[in-house]
């Protein structure tokens, strides 16, 4: 199984990198971009075959290490 974890800054937390990205895109002529938020994607290969159990474990991984919940939120996807 694979777990795909999306980690991003919580709404309301200033994202200077996202702001720089949106400005750069505007400079390149993509005026329709009004906001950018930058995050990261973490992919894990997992042993086992129980997606529900995997989701519980990966959520625990997010809380313990993969996300800093003071500033970040996360979303977990489990793939077969």
């Amino acid at each position, binding site marked *: 199984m694979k777990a795909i974890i999306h980690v991003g800054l919580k709404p309301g*937390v*200033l994202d*200077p*990198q996202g702001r*720089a990205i949106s400005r750069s895109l505007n400079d390149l002529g993509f005026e329709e971009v009004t906001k950018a938020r930058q995050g990261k994607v973490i992919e894990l290969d997992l042993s086992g075959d129980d997606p529900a159990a995997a989701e519980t474990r990966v959520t625990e991984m997010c809380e*313990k*290490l*993969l996300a*800093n919940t*003071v*500033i970040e939120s996360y979303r977990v996807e489990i793939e077969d």
Partner: protein
Amino acid sequence: MRTAVITFPASNCNRDAAMALEKVTGEKPLMVWHRESELPQGIDFVVLPGGFSYGDYLRCGAMASRSPIVKDLVSKANKGLAIAGFCNGFQVLTEAGLLPGALMRNKGLKFVCRPEKLKITNSDSRYTSKYGAVTDVTFPVAHHDGNYYADDETLNKLEKQGQVVFRYADNPNGSARDIAGICNQAGNVFGMMPHPERAIDPLHGGTDGLDLFKSIIESI
């Protein structure tokens, strides 16, 4: 008086911290490698040094804060052990949950490296008591991720409880409410992005950092 400096892979201010501690206590601190599972008996004060532990992978200080020695430090800090973290050490303390908030990418996106004027906003803390009537100090800063963030409720609480110990006179990184250094509610754990350990000798360009070390050592 026995002190210790924790060393992580890619710590780079561990020797600066050791020099500062030796200068103030007259004794060389114990250098403790991060894989140790327990701090040796009889240590009174611990410094988490600056640097780029684990190459700043994942988040600054994230990996270091999960190392065996930090687990032991968390339990000892909760029993009153004095611990200070400077720069990357501050990031480790927030990641370990010993101090509230988080350090984010600098607002201007640039690495900032220069002497920085700071205001002492709590002169009664265990880390500032020796400064007396001095209200302004200059410590070097050198960081890319020093933008202190906490939610408003936390910031209000920090201010109300006197936990904001230093503020920037000219905010270099976008830190909330110009916060440069904070302590925990009990006052034994302290963290700041600037480097007091790099301001302890006239050859550094100033000695404003010495009183910070003297303050905490004298309080023990």
